[in-house]
């Protein structure tokens, strides 16, 4: 990247920044600059995203015909690795490790995160975990689904369960370290005047995420270790044939993995708050409620895991408690959606590319959230559990929500990260393609689900074919929608027009420093005197 910038004709004009200050692979692999580490993460998770995406393309091809085009074994390994890679190696680190890593120190007015070396360590742990997962793929894959349900994973599966599980285990520590770094940074590194009520909502949401990462991820690590004990040493923990109980696995697994769903969406909500505010030229509606709702989500997310187990035979009272708690966690999410919408009221709205993704996020997250009600309701969960309805629901939240937010955030802060603009027309076109492709892929799956089509079937009864073909067609469009930005982002590194400090006229400390920033972000520690999103009329900010 740095070498590309050097060859640019405007080389004389380029200021010293974090990208060109040092050169060579060592300067990247041994860096402790949060911005360089963020770039390392962007490259790594993007690679993993395309690996996971390729698997999705392959199994959508398999599902074009009812009898399936590949063997059951191949299909099972494809969907399992797709889930594992997308959840643990893309969605969990997606925004925290990239955009938040880059932005949180700048947004709070600090030179770096609290523990720069630990930040680098977290990237190496991620890479170690990812290599283990890739090793599992290359050796032949794993066929347990991303949920690793025992006793199938511990006793019956003949695939590379341990390699994949240790990959996830290792990447988990990377996630814990990132969360820890954010929590300490937000507590201890805020610039003078940066009070809690002046923090950008992106910082609030990543702070809440950090709490979940630190408190929840160790339980995943414990669960995977117990899984390994049983698989290697046949210690009876989960398999009833040797004295264990499979329901215990589900309790432990979902104790992490439901909060993890919020690890995978809260940072995205933070991005949307920034974008909606900027492109409405208006302070966020109900700042306190939006900030508080992030914390409410973080807390409540820990007490809803049992809604994954309504039909395992858990007691009726357990079911009742988890059902009502699941409805409660829906409230803070609804608060956010209403506040984003209300932020546009009497704003001055423009449709730049990040805002298009924000529209996409709000719309798709709304649908994803509302269909969660069918699953939180005990009676209707019976009819939808384990079907494509669930698949559609969480893809609306995870892909329609989080991936949209990631794309929106990348388009919003790309000029800050690289100092370059990308082609506007292409980027709007790609946003549209993603939106259309997404809906075509996943909307038919709601219908398939209520019709009864089970998840994780490599072959299916012929009456489900039409909807599956629609879904596969949508997936190919969605795939194109993700490739286009890859192309123009890379193109823009060399050829994009220079962005300048503040191309969007946005409020926030990150827009007051040069693009790309210098290694230590600020020449002198900023003093904050105003709240976040202090948008006056547009002209004043730009001038």
């Amino acid at each position, binding site marked *: 990247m740095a070498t590309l910038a050097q060859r640019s004709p405007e080389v004389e004009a380029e200021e010293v920044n974090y990208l060109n200050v040092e050169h060579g692979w060592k300067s990247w692999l041994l860096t402790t600059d949060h911005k360089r580490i963020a770039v390392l993460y962007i490259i790594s998770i993007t690679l993993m995203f395309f690996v996971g995406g390729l698997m999705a393309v392959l199994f959508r091809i398999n599902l074009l015909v009812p009898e399936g085009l590949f063997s059951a074994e191949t299909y099972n390994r494809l969907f399992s690795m797709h889930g594992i890679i997308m959840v643990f190696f893309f969605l969990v680190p997606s925004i925290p490790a990239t955009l938040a890593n880059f932005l949180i120190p700048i947004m709070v007015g600090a030179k770096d995160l609290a523990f720069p070396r630990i930040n680098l360590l977290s990237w190496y742990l991620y890479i170690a975990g990812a290599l283990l997962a890739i090793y599992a793929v290359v050796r032949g894959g794993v066929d347990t689904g991303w949920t690793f349900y025992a006793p199938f994973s511990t006793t019956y599966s003949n695939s590379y369960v341990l390699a994949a599980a240790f990959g996830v285990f290792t990447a988990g520590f990377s996630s814990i370290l990132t969360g820890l770094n954010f929590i300490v940074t937000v507590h201890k590194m805020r610039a003078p005047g940066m009070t809690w009520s002046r923090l950008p909502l992106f910082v609030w949401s990543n702070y809440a995420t950090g709490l979940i990462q630190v408190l929840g991820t160790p339980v995943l690590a414990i669960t995977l270790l117990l899984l390994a004990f049983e698989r290697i040493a046949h210690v009876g923990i989960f398999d009833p044939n040797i004295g264990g109980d499979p329901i215990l696995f589900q309790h432990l697994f979902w104790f992490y993995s439901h909060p993890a769903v919020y690890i995978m969406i809260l940072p995205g909500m933070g991005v949307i708050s920034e974008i909606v505010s900027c492109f409405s030229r208006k302070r966020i509606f109900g700042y306190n409620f939006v900030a508080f709702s992030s914390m409410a989500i973080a807390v409540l997310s820990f007490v809803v895991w049992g809604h994954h187990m309504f039909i395992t035979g858990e007691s009726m009272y357990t079911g009742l408690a988890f059902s009502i708690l699941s409805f409660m966690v829906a409230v803070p999410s*609804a608060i956010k959606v*209403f506040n984003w919408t209300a932020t546009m009221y009497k704003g001055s709205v423009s449709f730049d590319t990040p805002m298009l993704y924000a529209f996409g996020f709000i719309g798709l997250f709304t649908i994803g959230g509302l269909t969660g009600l069918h699953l939180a309701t005990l009676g209707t969960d019976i009819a939808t559990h384990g079907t494509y309805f669930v698949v559609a629901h969480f893809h609306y939240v995870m892909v329609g929500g989080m991936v949209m937010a990631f794309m929106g955030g990348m388009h919003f802060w790309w000029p800050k990260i690289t100092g370059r603009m990308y082609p506007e027309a292409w980027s709007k076109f790609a946003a549209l393609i993603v939106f259309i492709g997404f809906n075509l892929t996943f909307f038919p799956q709601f219908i398939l689900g209520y019709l009864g089509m089970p998840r994780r079937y490599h072959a299916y009864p012929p009456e489900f074919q039409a909807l599956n073909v629609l879904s596969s067609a949508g997936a190919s469009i969605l795939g194109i929608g993700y490739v286009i930005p890859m192309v123009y982002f890379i193109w823009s590194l060399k050829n994009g027009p220079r962005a300048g400090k503040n191309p969007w006229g946005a409020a926030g400390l990150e827009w007051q420093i040069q693009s790309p920033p210098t290694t230590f972000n600020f020449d002198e520690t900023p003093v904050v005197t105003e709240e976040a999103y202090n948008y006056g009329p547009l002209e004043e900010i730009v001038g």
Partner: protein
Amino acid sequence: MLASMRILADLPLFPVAASEQAGSIDALYWFITAISILMTVIIFLGLGIFAWKYHNKRHPHATQIEGSTKLELTWSILPFLIMLIMFGWGADLYYKAQTPPKDAMEIFVTGKQWMWKIQYPDGTREINALHVPVGQPVKLTMASEDVIHSFSIPAFRVRHDVMPGHYNTLWFTATKPGHYHLFCTEYCGDQHAGMIGWVDVLEPREYANWASGGASQGSLAEQGQKLFEQNGCATCHLLDQQGRCPILRGLYNKPVQLADGRTVIADDAYIRESILDPNAKIVAGFQPNVMPNFKGQISEENVIQLIAYIKSLSPSTPASQQGSQQPPVVIAPKAGAAAKPGGAAQH
């Protein structure tokens, strides 16, 4: 082209409803869907109207607004109240789904990689096929030989996981004769997608015809009795006098005093555990380590046969609990053989 048009014309959008449960779950499903559509329309209209009306061409200067506590409370509390309706309605259906009627006909299901084995009280066995009469409540008692499976009949809107090491039950009353899918909906390995079958709902007369065609090896209880003798159970569990092990006559669904002071009901799950792992719960007055472990020695299907036999030693025990004051009645175990599926509820 023609083919694809035909596929589109046949495009199913909503499943058939063929059980009493289906209607009530669909009603709730549509209620939640209607509320969801309403909320989606409100949000989308809000986004659309604000985006158009306050576009920077038409509205170049934003008016800064702090927020509104009143609005925040409204859009927090109002949706939650609506969700409480969903919760209560859903809880009611969940309770009903877990409470089979007392006169339900009992059928046994064993999930195994990758098939469903069905056992009827009259001893008939099927694989990946279930036959039930229309209008009759049916209770399925389900076990797994290996991993977790999930038994699902979409047309009935019923589903329950089948956890190894546990008995799980579900029930339904079919309302429409027909041929319906039966799926496994918990991923269980390679041929998960092949763990499917058909449910045939028959008119009562057709059902009686079908039932009379099966059963050659005696009723489930008779099969159990054979196993009971083959495995030497009868040497210690004497029928009418105290042996080294508890008397099983009159035991089913009665309270049992345990050596550790607890009292448990001798239901299917207790009897299953006492066969597979006899030391887990020792009856008061008896010694541990007398009976061998049968875990891994006999299949779940055999356990179901043994339970049916033990059940047949407690005549006229409905699925519900019975008072323990009822005197044990001596009957020949063969009595169970007379029951055809229609009358199976009398077991």
